[in-house]
């Protein structure tokens, strides 16, 4: 039987791990790197590049190089986050036929699922080269706050990449699995995960080989890239002031600024001051212009301190959900490259009143955790059990546009919950059950997962019929909802097929296209 790999499909970098001889190990790619940039590019002559190759040519081919597409996956074109990306990304983002954002590179509009599949395929290839055997099964991680469509798109991407996705698990949960692997102690652990594009916080408890997620919270649109962006904007403003040129419209300049900002940010984790030098960044009537400026750690901290403060608010909320105070936490684990920043480490240490755990590599720990879960599910031994939770509340829309939650977020799955509802109009013979996911009190502000109608209710004054609505989530996170008129016994139900942005036909079509491309590439 082939082995199960764990893939951390990150916003900026991806990583793959496997269990070998009962120990998890991270698989290096052909270049010897343990992480691979989540980047994809189409060159002038139509060649497709992934990972380091794509990153290396990004500056000269900014318009046809895709990065951070994870921020767009599973979203609607109208979403504010998508609009924000359109403004900032050098590559083109267009409206797809399913109202999804699509990325235009090399003269073709790619769906975000497709881009993710290209990166997953690369990770699969990395693993296969290392193992010398085909790999078919994977556990893939996503940010804890990904909603159903985002998770489903990631799952679809796995399928397109030729992987059977055994389970989608949350990144912080994976980090905790990696931390707890082989430990016999009873501990409460906080995982603070500030990656390239997302921020997650999870509180977990481990004991007797069982890991229970107590609470999880986060923000799918806050991460290291925002730090970079702050620096880029600072550079743009500085340049506009000193040279009177706005660099915003220049895709190539933007890409150079972005690279320089990221490098400066990383360097400032070690040093107090860095110099940013970008010769020939622009030109006007007076000839070429160069950008040269010093950035201090203090200035950087001033630019981003509100982002860090925002993450702590989320931490506070999560601790409230877990019913714990900061001193109840035994161990704090930092995950994600952005947690290398001294200010972030200090803020987290101050909040919990203890230094974060040093033993894990923030770039690799998530993939390691994913491989551990893959092993826990499929191996005979089974000395580890993860009690995972549902990340967002589930419920139905009620009279007046309200959202009635039946399953609160952070509820352990599998689970079943039921509640009695009634009619709101006299002689109402049908009710529409709209299944929603989200945290807003207002129905319209949550995601609609599906809807169905229960008919044949006895004509009666409003409030008299009793309709039991029940929610079931199985261990794979599949939600089914049923509504039953307790008087007549009539029942309607749906299985909420989390839909990504692609339907089955489109997925098949992409799989075929990719096979065709693989054949061409080989030939």
């Amino acid at each position, binding site marked *: 039987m082939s082995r199960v790999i764990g893939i951390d499909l990150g916003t900026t970098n991806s990583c793959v791990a496997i269990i070998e001889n009962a120990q998890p190990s991270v698989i290096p790619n052909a270049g010897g790197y343990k992480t691979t940039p989540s980047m994809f590019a189409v060159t002038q002559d139509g060649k497709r590049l992934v990972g380091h190759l794509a990153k290396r040519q990004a500056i000269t081919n900014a318009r046809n190089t895709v990065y951070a597409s994870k921020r767009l996956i599973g979203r609607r074109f109208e979403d504010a986050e998508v609009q924000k990306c359109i403004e900032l990304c050098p590559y083109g983002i267009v409206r797809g036929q399913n109202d999804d954002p699509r990325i235009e590179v090399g003269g073709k509009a790619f769906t975000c699922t497709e881009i993710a599949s290209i990166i997953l395929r690369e990770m699969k290839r990395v693993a296969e080269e290392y193992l010398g055997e085909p790999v078919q099964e994977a556990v893939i991680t996503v940010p804890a706050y990904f909603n159903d469509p985002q998770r489903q798109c990631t799952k679809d991407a796995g399928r397109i990449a030729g992987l059977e996705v*055994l389970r989608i698990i949350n990144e912080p949960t994976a980090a905790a699995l990696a931390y707890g692997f082989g430990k016999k102690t009873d501990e409460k652990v906080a995982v603070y995960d500030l990656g390239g594009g997302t921020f997650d916080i999870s509180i977990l*408890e481990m*004991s*007797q*080989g*069982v890991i*229970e997620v107590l609470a999880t919270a986060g923000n799918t649109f806050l991460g290291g890239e925002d730090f970079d962006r702050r620096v880029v904007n600072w550079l743009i403003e500085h340049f506009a002031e000193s040279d009177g040129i706005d660099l915003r419209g220049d895709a190539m300049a933007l890409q150079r600024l972005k690279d320089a900002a990221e490098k400066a940010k990383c360097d400032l984790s070690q040093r107090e001051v860095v110099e940013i030098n970008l010769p020939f960044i622009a030109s006007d009537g007076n000839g070429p212009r160069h950008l040269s400026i010093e950035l201090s750690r203090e200035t950087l901290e001033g630019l981003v301190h509100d982002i860090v403060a925002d993450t702590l608010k989320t931490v506070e909320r999560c601790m409230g959900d877990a019913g714990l105070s900061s001193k109840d936490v035994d161990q704090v684990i930092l995950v994600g490259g952005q947690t290398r920043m001294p200010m972030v480490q200090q803020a987290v240490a101050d909040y919990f009143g203890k230094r974060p755990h040093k033993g894990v590599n923030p770039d690799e720990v998530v993939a390691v955790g994913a491989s551990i879960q893959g092993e*826990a*599910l*499929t191996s005979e031994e*089974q000395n580890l*059990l*993860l*009690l995972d939770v549902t990340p967002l509340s589930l419920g139905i829309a009620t009279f007046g546009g309200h959202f009635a*939650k039946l399953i*609160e977020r952070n*509820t*352990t799955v*599998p*689970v*079943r*919950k*039921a*509640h*009695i*509802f*009634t009619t*709101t109009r*006299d002689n109402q013979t049908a009710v529409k059950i709209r299944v929603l996911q989200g945290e807003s009190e207002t129905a319209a502000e949550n995601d609609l997962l599906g809807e169905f109608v229960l008919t044949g209710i006895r004509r009666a*004054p*409003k*409030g*008299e019929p009793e309709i039991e609505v*029940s929610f079931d989530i*199985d*261990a794979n996170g599949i939600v089914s909802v*049923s509504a*039953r008129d307790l008087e*007549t*016994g*009539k*029942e309607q139900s749906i299985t909420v097929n989390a839909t990504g942005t692609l339907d089955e036909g489109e997925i098949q079509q992409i799989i075929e296209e990719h096979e065709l491309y693989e054949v061409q590439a080989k030939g």
Partner: protein
Amino acid sequence: MRLGKDGSSGGGERVPHLAPGCDPASLSLTPAEGYLLSRIDGNTPLSLLRQIAALPAADVDRTLERWVKEGVLVWDKPGARPAPQASAPPTSTPPSAPRPAAPAPGIDPSLDLSVEMQQRVIDFEACLDRPYHEILGVALDADAKAIKSAYFGLSKQFHPDRYFRRNLGPYAARVERIFKKVLEAYELLSDPATRVEVQRGLGAEAPPAPASPAAPAAKAASAAPAGAPPPDPAAARRLRARLSSLGRHHRAQQERRLKAKGFFESGMAAFKKERWLEAAGSVRLAIAFDPDNESYRSAFSDVQRKAHEERARALLKEADGAFELSDYKDALRLYEEALHYRAFDAELSHKTGRLAWKLGADLRKAKEYAMAACELAPDNALYHRTLGQIYKAAGLAANAKRELQTALRLDPKDVEARQELRAL
């Protein structure tokens, strides 16, 4: 498991019986399915079930097969249960004891689940009706740590991920059901707010402890050892239904109470302004959101009476309108509906009965209405005359004669009654 595969040695009639520990109340069934399930008593064979169920035979088979898959039913042959190897110990042997030579009913060695574990599932399922702390196997006053430890231990046995991709047959659904129950018990007992409710529920519904009649009931309950007699299972089920709708978060409950209060207040405001229908609707919603609030229920009867009056008035107005437009059928329907709210109204009963008779609709119904009118107002000649006329139309001459005579006695000048009587 599939039909046909299970009659362990073939031949004879196959008989389904309920799987041990299965709680039929936890299933969602159509009335026809509910009826079918109620006929399954461990003695009635499949062939008979096919005949007596309110479903086509194919549907009966399909439904039974589904239930077997879901672990609700197991197949058995009558007389096969006392194992042929009569010396084997009874099937209720605790799981730790040596296994009986013949597998217990429901045990299927071909599954990817050890026979011991199958027995454990069966035994555990049989206990799911017991109080929450017994499901977890902890004392009623166990501390948070003990509760969590028990929950983790049971999770390791019953979480579906333990059996990822394994062929568990009907046990897959049963294991998941057990885990959900364990989770429910853990959630309710680990949250101090809901735990108090659970303990109070047990205290209120447990029979008084005969050993220490002097001890205050509440104290006795909280001190009761784990081995105390379980409360009436139906009561426990009621309690559980209530508690599970309470959910994990007490906050949600409070929100609902708050909503209920809001509805109740707007209902009372409407009541003061004599907008009865609106008031009743609001109070009904308040009760729906907070079913345990007695004051809402007691206020509801007043509000409902007023609302019924208003509804009846509206219906009557509509009915009279229909009547004037010669839309008699509609008028009759509306009068009948109004009568539902004004059963004490003799005049309305009479009017409805008369209309039903004139429309040649259901004469028996017409008679009922007219009789009701006569009962409510025994001295009204007109009502007796109508009743007599209806009897006459129905061909019941003796009754007709009696009613018409009564009418004439009450009102000797009633010409129509006289004519009718003469015609008889």
